[in-house]
């Protein structure tokens, strides 16, 4: 750490290589940029998958429309996977997320179609309905999660058992509600949370979000540099910071550009034009779609969860517990309370996903969320979360969810039938974990 540097007192200490000495090899570049190699590997895998499918499908995979679809289809699993990371990091498991999601989704559907409009007398389409429904869903999720967490942490029943019970209980309760009837259609405002052209930010909203995000990321990198320098930590070379900032800006603004490159479907655009008295130009009226709300929700969740995991005491405690439960307890961490809140958080996120899924389908069905627990756990694990505890990142899990959905979606396009899809996804899951373990053995 204390390498000699040319800078005089107070200035940032440079890593071994100076500003002008650029790296000689890719390995050196990665080391100097100080990025998570596992995350980098995942990005590379995703790139290979995307390009591979694009070639295999004759160029119909990497289109704005398909990537937009992919982002919306991944959102629900990715949201829950961020919570599953903390659950698995703390050496637990949550098998009940799919059933919780179904139960919460069903309750919200009842609330917005029956309880609020009829029992409370708000009437269908009242503007408060979607807000009350969302709040109900989130509170219910948190409560369910906390109850399971309470039993796990304080009654010393393994989480595998408690959540296996939860899987059965919540699914069973769905049926008790309304004899398993499908509830549809849902509140029109609520439905926007599930995406679709109307449920998206639009062109300028998306650019605004993209630019703000870029500024925040660049400012964050600069601030991090200053703080590291202040406390005498080794900092990245200037060129690495610049490169990283440029790369982040490219990814963020590129994603916005892709989302905007997908225009509203012709029919909807024409309807919109007619309603607003806009004359339709010869080439058709083009409205860029922009980032869909579920994707925006997913990104917000990922940022908040990353902050919780890496910057808050609660998050650090969870990693400490996963790394060594006894040591964590002896060092004064209230492990039981932390575990309970990990499951509370997981329940809350199942509530968020329930909003996205029911809104997207515009219905609550009894099968809502069935086997989602497997997808969520797979996403977290493909994203580098270790079952031995203490290791796992939120961005990794989000990428894991995108990898899974990319595989599924690409295979559907290639007309691979669903049993073969299962076989391939299963092999990929095991291979990803095997590769991860091999990497870890090599590097330590």
């Amino acid at each position, binding site marked *: 750490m204390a390498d000699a540097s040319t800078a005089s007192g107070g200035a940032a200490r440079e890593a071994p290589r100076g500003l002008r000495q650029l790296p000689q090899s890719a390995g050196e570049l990665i080391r100097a940029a100080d990025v998570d190699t596992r995350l980098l590997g995942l990005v590379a895998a995703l790139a290979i998958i995307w390009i591979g499918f694009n070639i295999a499908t004759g160029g119909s995979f990497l289109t704005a429309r398909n990537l937009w679809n992919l982002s919306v289809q991944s959102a629900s699993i990715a949201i829950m996977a961020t919570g599953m990371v903390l659950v698995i990091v703390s050496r637990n498991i949550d098998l009940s997320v799919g059933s919780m999601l179904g139960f919460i989704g069903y309750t919200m559907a009842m609330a917005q179609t029956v309880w609020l409009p009829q029992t409370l007398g708000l009437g269908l389409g009242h503007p408060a309905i979607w807000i009350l429904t969302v709040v109900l869903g989130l509170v219910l999720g948190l409560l369910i999660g906390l109850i399971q967490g309470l039993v796990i942490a304080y009654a010393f029943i393994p989480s595998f058992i408690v959540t296996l019970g939860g899987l059965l209980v919540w699914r069973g309760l769905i049926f008790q509600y309304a004899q398993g009837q499908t509830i549809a259609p849902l509140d029109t405002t609520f439905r926007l949370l599930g995406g679709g052209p109307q449920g998206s930010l639009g062109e300028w909203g998306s650019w605004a979000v993209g630019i703000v995000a870029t500024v925040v990321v660049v400012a964050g990198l600069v601030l991090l540099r200053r703080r590291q320098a202040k406390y005498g930590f080794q900092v990245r070379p200037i060129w690495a910071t610049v490169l990283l900032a440029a790369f982040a800006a490219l990814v963020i603004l590129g994603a916005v550009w892709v989302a905007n490159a997908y225009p509203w479907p012709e029919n909807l655009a024409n309807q919109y034009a007619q309603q607003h008295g806009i004359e339709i130009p010869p080439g058709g009226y083009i409205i860029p779609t922009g980032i869909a709300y579920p994707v925006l929700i997913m990104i917000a969740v990922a940022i908040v969860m990353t902050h919780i995991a890496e910057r808050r005491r609660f998050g650090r405690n969870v990693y400490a517990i996963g790394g060594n439960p006894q040591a964590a307890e002896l060092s004064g961490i209230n492990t039981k309370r932390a575990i309970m809140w990990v499951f509370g958080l997981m329940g809350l996120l199942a509530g968020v996903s329930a909003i996205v899924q029911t809104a997207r389908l515009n219905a609550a*069905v009894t099968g*809502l969320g069935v086997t989602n627990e497997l997808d969520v756990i797979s996403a977290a694990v493909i994203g580098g979360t270790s079952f031995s505890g203490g290791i796992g990142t939120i961005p990794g899990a989000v990428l894991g969810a995108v990898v899974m959905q990319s595989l599924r979606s690409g295979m559907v396009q290639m007309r691979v039938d669903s049993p073969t899809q299962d076989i391939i996804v299963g092999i990929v899951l095991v291979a990803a974990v095997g590769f991860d373990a091999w990497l870890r053995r090599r590097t330590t």
Partner: protein
Amino acid sequence: MVIRRTAAVLGILALALAACGGGGGSSAGASAGASSGGGGGESDCTVAVSWNNYQEERWALRDEPAIKAALDEAGAEYLSADAGSSEEQQATDVENLLSQGANVLIILAQNTETILPSVEAAIDQGVPVIAYDRLIESPDSLYISFDNVRVGEMQAEAVLEVVDSGNFVIIKGNGADANSDFLRQGYTNVGVPDVGENSDTITIVGETYTDNWDPALAQTEMEQFLTENDNDVDAVLSENDGMAGGVVAALEAQGLAGQVPVSGQDGDIAALNRVALGTQTVDVWKDARELGRAAGEAAVALCEDSDLASVPDTQEFESPGGNTLTSILLEPIAITQDNLDVVLDADWITEEELCQGVESGTVDVCP
């Protein structure tokens, strides 16, 4: 009533747990889940139903009450068990129901093949078997169902009436469920090209099975097909209402709902509402209450005389497996915007449910 029963079961479990606590003995995994319906006096006719998966929309709401009503009328007893979509559990259920003294067995089979040993066991004990809604490949069983090939024909006929050429998408149900293929057969019968083929006028631009008839999966499939074909899809044949819901959600996102005809079946409330709204073209309605009543009455008849030929209104049915079965096949009804009054008159759905969000003046039955 459900709550009281649940409480009672929990009470029993608590006692069992307390008993186990002392010695740490092994617990017997009894999970028959049988419940006696009337609980009244002795009866010489006990009819048992083995459901494959009670947690689906219609069984509890429509079928079971109709079966029970028919049995009550004749003073027969009702027993049931739910296999929760498991073949093994269903085999256990049948054994349990037989040992509880069932005189007639009604089976909604999870799997038409693996149920055969259970059916043979029942028939060997002199208990006649009714294959309810789903075929069982045993010539000794009485097959009571709606004509599923006919359902497929009706779906395709209604869609072809709106659009008779162009690009078609076919969203099929579970690949392991024989009904998926019966329905597909119906499509072929009325002029839709067979699997993997195209005709002069109709091109199939997308066809897929859907695991567990999952609506959310059907939505993703439909989105994929629309993306691939750049929205150039003229009609969608969806095998049931749940999946039709997913399909319509995908079409709605492209502003195509109401322009592309979509089929369905089951008479789901939400689907009938879509028919009224114009976003779903046809809902082939199989009044499950008719089916339940037919099964209940047949069961009572079999209690009197276990010879299948003694049941009234039966016909011969050639099964795909080459068996000649005694069967009762009911005729479904295709519900479109023109005859929505049928489901209203049958008290299947309330006017409020049917007409939710429908603009006045667009459909006759909605004010």
